[in-house]
């Protein structure tokens, strides 16, 4: 037994110089510092130097019907943009230092940089325009636009964590939107629509998992086919039944806003976060629950086991097929509920293909968020924010064409999916049928 204790000790002695060797050989990662420098220079040379002298930017931080209202904040455009740009370049310099010394920076670094960059851009965009930049509208709009993305990303996450790739999120959102509109219209109650929507998403999920688990069909192909199927079916019903008898089947129903007493009175945060429909509050609950349950519950542990190494799960008596079926259907229900946002959530009637590719952006948000509920939430909010920014700026008029801004989510998506965010690690067994 003597070497039982001595061997690990000697191992430890030799492990130390090895760590150093790893650090020496690791290539310096330049992509983040270079990106920061380029963006920082853009901020300095364009957002700052192009500002007309003496211009002022006005931010409005409250809405008229707030409990406490604030005056608009006026800042000198040039000075503010200059300070923000210098701070960005300082962060970029820090990133260069960290890269050369191979120090890892936390997630706060890109987040802080992003906030500074966006603020500098807003200062530039509003400089000398005489129009206010409505911060509350901008932020609450960002949250509203993120709702289907967040639901979709949670759906993708639950499916992929259990090993089923779900390309059909788009179809699930659309099916949810359709059924919500039809049910709400028929019963003239938006709440009935909200209750019905998850069933539509779950049905699409059930089809996906049936083909994937029972027939081992390539999951990506099934997903694409299901998207086409849902688009076809909903468009067919839209152009026939829904248009012929719109009074009965496709009237507008809207979920009422339910401001949370107290919380909704808080300046800025209140109107942005706590003055929404029940759908948004349900979203908070789902994200919060998933961020705990995926990692700390029996359900989550088994789901992750099945997605990483189904055979290992099988050898401890976990039914792999059943786990995948239940989770994919559950995930579909989540996406279906998200689809309700397009119709009853916004108070609109159903329109053809009204999900407009949001399901794919949700998928990207899930990847960018590294299959983690909190990460996916942040990524979806980022996409929602960039869309909201585009919309807000196009109303107040900016030097940048709003189409360019509306492109932003897609540009971010391409970078995200191309692995710019670094080592992403999908569940090891996703997309792989489990055959005993």
């Amino acid at each position, binding site marked *: *037994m*003597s*070497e*039982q204790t*001595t*061997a*690990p000790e*000697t*191992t430890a002695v*030799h*492990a130390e110089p*090895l760590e150093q*060797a*790893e650090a020496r*050989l*690791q*290539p310096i*990662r330049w992509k983040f510092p270079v990106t920061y420098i380029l963006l920082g220079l853009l901020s300095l040379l364009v957002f700052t130097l192009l500002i007309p002298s003496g211009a002022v930017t006005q931010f409005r931080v409250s809405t008229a019907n707030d409990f406490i209202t604030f005056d608009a904040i006026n800042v000198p455009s040039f000075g503010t943009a200059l300070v923000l740009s210098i701070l960005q370049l300082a962060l970029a310099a820090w990133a260069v230092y960290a890269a050369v010394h191979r120090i890892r920076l936390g997630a706060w670094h890109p987040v802080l940089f992003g906030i500074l960059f966006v603020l500098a851009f807003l200062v530039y965009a509003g400089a000398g325009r005489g129009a206010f930049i409505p911060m509350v509208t901008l932020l609450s709009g960002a949250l509203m636009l993120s709702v289907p993305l967040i639901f979709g990303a949670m759906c993708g996450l639950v499916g992929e964590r259990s090993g089923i790739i779900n390309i059909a999120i788009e179809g699930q959102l659309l099916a949810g939107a359709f059924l919500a509109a039809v049910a709400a219209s028929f019963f003239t109650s938006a709440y009935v629509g909200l209750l019905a929507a998850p069933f539509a998403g779950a049905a699409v999920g059930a089809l996906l998992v049936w083909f994937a688990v029972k027939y081992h069909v390539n999951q990506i192909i099934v997903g694409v086919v299901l998207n086409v199927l849902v688009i076809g079916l909903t468009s067919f019903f839209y152009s026939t039944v829904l248009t012929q008898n719109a009074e009965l089947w496709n009237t507008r129903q809207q979920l009422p806003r339910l401001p949370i007493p107290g919380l909704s009175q808080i300046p800025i945060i209140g109107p942005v976060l706590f003055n929404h429909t029940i759908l948004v509050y349900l979203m908070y609950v789902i994200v919060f629950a998933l961020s*705990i*349950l995926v990692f*700390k*519950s*029996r*359900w989550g*542990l*088994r789901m*992750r*086991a099945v997605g*990483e*190494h189904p*055979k*290992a*799960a*099988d*050898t*401890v*008596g*976990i*039914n792999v097929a059943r786990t995948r079926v239940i989770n994919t259907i559950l995930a579909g229900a989540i996406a279906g509920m998200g689809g309700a946002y397009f119709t009853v959530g916004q108070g609109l009637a159903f329109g053809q293909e009204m999900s407009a590719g949001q399901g794919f952006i949700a998928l990207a948000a899930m990847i960018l968020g590294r299959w983690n509920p909190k990460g996916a939430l942040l990524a979806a909010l980022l996409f929602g924010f960039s869309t909201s920014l585009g919309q807000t700026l196009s109303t107040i008029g900016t030097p940048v064409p709003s189409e360019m801004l509306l492109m932003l989510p897609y540009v971010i998506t391409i970078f995200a999916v191309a692995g710019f965010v670094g*080592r992403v*690690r999908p569940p*090891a067994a996703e997309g792989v049928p489990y055959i*005993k």
Partner: protein
Amino acid sequence: MKLQLKGVTKRFGTFTANDQIDLTVQPGEIHALLGENGAGKSTLMNTIYGLYSPDEGEILLDDEPVRFSGPGDAVAAGIGMVHQHFMLIPVFSVTESVMLGYEPTKGPGLIDFTEARRRVKEISARFGFEVDPEAMIEDLPVGAQQRVEIIKALSRDAKVLILDEPTAVLTPQETDELISIMRQLKASGTSILFITHKLREVRAIADKITVIRRGKVVGEATPESTETELASLMVGREVSLTTQKEPAQPGETALSISGLSVVSAQGKTLLDDVSLEIARGEILCIAGVDGNGQTELTEAILGIREAAAGTITLDGTDLGPKSVKQRLNSGIGFVPEDRSTDGVIAGFSITENFVLDQYDQPPYSNGVAMKHEVMRAAAAEQTSRFDVRLGTVDDPISTLSGGNQQKVVLARELSRDNRLLVASQPTRGVDVGSIEFIHRTLIEERAKGTPCLIVSTELDEVLNLADRIAVMYRGRIIGTVPGDTDRDVLGLMMAGVPAEEAKAQAATHHTVLGEADAEAEEQA
């Protein structure tokens, strides 16, 4: 608990993997199931564990017949299994791995992590395992991963423990620890069924040995049987286990590697400042636990992996700027470690596989045309020299057994004038009878003056073939020692102990396998 199998038969289509197997494991007995690759050992284990259901026969636990519809039933009945390929999830912690499927919960399905950790600690303390319950599986060495598997089985109160090829990935010292764990378990009344094809271990560990061949029980033996007796029982004919070889006659240095480093795409150092030299007419074996940089070293020599630093020269020429094809054509013979993914193309014929890396070279081609008749003749000649059992050389190579496919690969790489031979795991998955033949062929290649670099994780093979042994650990060469170095010293080096220290430590303590070696030498 007593485990008894009566007439267990399992068929896959027309193939009978297990044919009327009878086996009894008494309580507190270490029972070895000995058989070659493909003899049906794993099928039998999976049947006992409920992954397969037997077509005929029955399984009895303490004389009660049992039927399992899945592993969950087997576990509930008190059967635990440590699979050859561990059933562990790399991104899970030790605690998560142990509790999976049997999670202690509190409240609405939330896991009671405190309780789960306490269970892991309790079992590790009982058997003296040093396992950190918070460690990630992927960060643990294989020996520790195996202990996690054992903890997993014990945490479910396994009374019968099945170990499938448990020593395949261990150093002799780790094997020693495993043996002491097995003896502790035996003392506490656990029955152990232990599957292996390694003769030396069987004799050192088992109380009783059952030998199976081609799905049938062919005999029982006691640990007193000699290795040769066990081998001939296992193979069905007389086999010689060691290869006689003359001392090497090393000529001038042919391959010279200096300061070679390889970094993965994720920035992890896979090879760290590796330097070695091989002379003509010499076999250098690379020993080490799987995954310590051996694969990367062979791939860097062939050129399919880019070196981050360092040089490789063969006969004075720098290989650095040469492409893989140029390297192969200049006379590097390469036997990849995984024949099924890198060595052969399953759908191609034996002939096509035989010329896979020389199809455009004379004599097999001439300008743009391939000479099929020359290829077929050469394939037929060389496969018969290598004793490949085949129908015709036009059959797809997938119709051959793994061992015969391996011989085709070796025939391809050894049937030309090599300036260097790089062979990884040359006998993996090959039956015992053919191992000796392959070893003899490799030694003949050495006699022709070819420098040979042979990577093997099997110490028996290394000791059998090597003129010199380089031991790799975490991407480094921990030391280069003579070919007759003691198994215990090599084992310690495989765990990262430098050669001198390893010699000193090994002198004070011999492992069970090291002692078995000494004994075998005395007899010889």
